């Protein structure tokens, strides 16, 4: 048994070869997916996922690259997982927008603190100020290593949610401070890298909520704190949440065109010359979730959102819909965001998007 295991693992991986470089055939250059290869183990599954992305006619993906996977122990870097994804995406002709997060256990505590003996009591989104420099050093190593293959990185995710800020009270000024240090790290590694910042979660959280902060309030406070100096492209999360893609935005509600309110804020603070990218978007067709729509409408709205952005938002690059495929089912409403099932069965919406990208 030991002999079989010893030979089978490396052999299985070696059987997967990159093959000839491919090009994405598409008529719709702004179509992008947020993939979820973070927890995909087998190389062949990464390859199959990215082949399906290419065959759908998507020019780019947002993919999550956990810091903790690479630098589980401080200073010891293992790039095996990210190398595979980036090489295979590159071979498929897909632009990778790398979202970097997941704090390793060691970095959740300042050097002067002690990690509890029974395990971390801080989640993987907890980064104390004393560790900002470590995060920046990792970003530097990442952008340096993938120079020529990765042109875009997203620093942090949805910092206006307590969940994404280590379950602490969210803090826009402190977040900008972190971004300032991380941005410098990204540029040290690759001066040409385009840094995407922002990525706030669309939410109407009331003042004082322990769960997070209203997205526009958070973003405005970020701008006041000097956010403009810490990014090159604004990352926007803009979900449909049951409304049609072309419904006008409203400060009292959330919908796809909320991206326009974010853009207004950006312009107001003198950053109108920069581009945006919708790095999370989409409609959900859970039968129960209050913010979902029915499956047929999800298909219509998703395709409508790509076209709306192409027709009306010259300031935007990609529309990246969440989430292409999960390595395994969540058995929750999350599954109703997918385009391809974990077993690679294309869902009806995948076929619809594929048809759309091939039309002039």
């Amino acid at each position, binding site marked *: 048994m030991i002999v079989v295991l010893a030979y089978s693992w490396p052999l299985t991986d070696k059987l997967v070869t990159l093959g000839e470089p491919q090009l994405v055939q598409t008529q719709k250059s702004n179509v992008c997916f947020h993939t979820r290869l973070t927890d995909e183990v087998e190389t062949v599954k990464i390859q199959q996922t990215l082949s399906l992305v290419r065959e759908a006619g998507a020019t780019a993906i947002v993919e999550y690259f956990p810091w903790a996977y690479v630098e589980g122990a401080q200073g010891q870097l293992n790039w095996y997982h990210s190398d595979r994804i980036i090489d295979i995406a590159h071979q498929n002709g897909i632009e990778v927008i790398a979202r970097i997060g997941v704090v390793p256990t060691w970095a959740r505590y300042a050097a002067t603190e002690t990690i509890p003996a029974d395990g971390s009591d801080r989640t993987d989104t907890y980064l104390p100020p004393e560790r900002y420099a470590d995060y920046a050093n990792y970003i530097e190593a990442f952008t340096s290593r993938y120079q020529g293959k990765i042109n875009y990185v997203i620093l942090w995710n949805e910092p206006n949610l307590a969940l994404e800020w280590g379950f602490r009270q969210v803090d826009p000024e402190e977040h900008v401070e972190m971004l300032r240090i991380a941005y410098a790290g990204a540029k040290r590694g690759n001066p040409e890298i385009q840094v995407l910042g922002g990525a706030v979660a669309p939410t109407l959280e009331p003042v004082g909520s322990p769960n997070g902060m209203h997205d526009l309030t958070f973003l405005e406070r970020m701008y006041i704190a000097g956010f403009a100096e810490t990014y090159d492209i604004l990352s926007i999360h803009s979900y449909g949440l049951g409304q049609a893609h072309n419904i006008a935005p409203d400060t009292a509600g959330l919908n796809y065109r909320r991206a326009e309110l974010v853009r207004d804020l950006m312009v107001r603070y003198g950053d109108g010359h920069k581009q945006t990218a919708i790095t999370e978007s989409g409609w959900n067709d859970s039968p129960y979730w209050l913010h979902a729509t029915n*499956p047929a409408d999800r298909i219509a709205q998703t395709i409508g959102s790509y076209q709306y952005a192409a027709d009306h938002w010259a300031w935007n690059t990609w529309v990246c819909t969440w989430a292409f495929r999960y390595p395994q089912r969540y058995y*929750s409403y999350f599954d109703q965001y997918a385009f391809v099932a974990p077993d690679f*069965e294309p869902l009806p*919406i995948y076929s619809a998007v594929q048809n759309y990208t091939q039309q002039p």
Partner: protein
Amino acid sequence: MKQSVFAVLAMLAATAVIFATFPVEEDAIWLDIQNRQTLVFAVDATFPPFSALDGNGNYGGFDVELARVLAKEMGLTPQFRLVSFDSLLGATVVRQADVAISAIVLQPARTEEVYFSTPYFNAGTRLISPQQQIERPVVDWLLGKTIVVELGSQGDVIVRRLEKAQLDVTVLRVSSVMELEKTLATGQAEVGLADVVAAFEIIKANPTWTSTHAETVPYVMASAKQSPLLHQEIEVALTQLEESGVLPDLRQKWFGTEASVLSFAP
């Protein structure tokens, strides 16, 4: 879907082993619950009919009512904390809540962080037919029939598999559950595939029709891994609620007679 059943059974077995080895006297969470006499539930109130808020901000829904009777069974006072779905399990880990409930399905990848309870409801997709009987094996019974599904739904995914296998079925795709029901009622299709809650509603409106699970998705509660005693108490209370008829009555109240008994897909 049978894997889900096996996963649940495996979880229970693993739980038994943990109980046998864990130093329960150090269960600070359970001690805290006993001291304050409350059981705090993390709820995402955007999942009607399972969990929702009414116009006055009051919690309601099947899951919320279950939480109330569960707490009562445990001799505790229920309290609810509004948490987004993404944070439900994490809220128990960081002790912002004791139990998470809101149409949660057992996630094997999260079992290092939380305990999942035994299932209290089976969601999923159901076959509905105006005919008196759905015969088994179901796949054979479907041959030669016209099946109606909502475009893009899980029912649509299932019938695409049948089409891909080149089975002798005719598929009609409609854009809503209302259209699906109408298609069945007018005899344009002999069988439909719909989400369980919609299917139960259709059966309530058409009591002579029959239905059965095509796929089952069990709903569970979650509680922090640091408290095996809390998990144990939840299991005991859930079992009592099931055996005493309180939980079956609750399912019947919300979803109709067919929902009162937990059943898995054939």
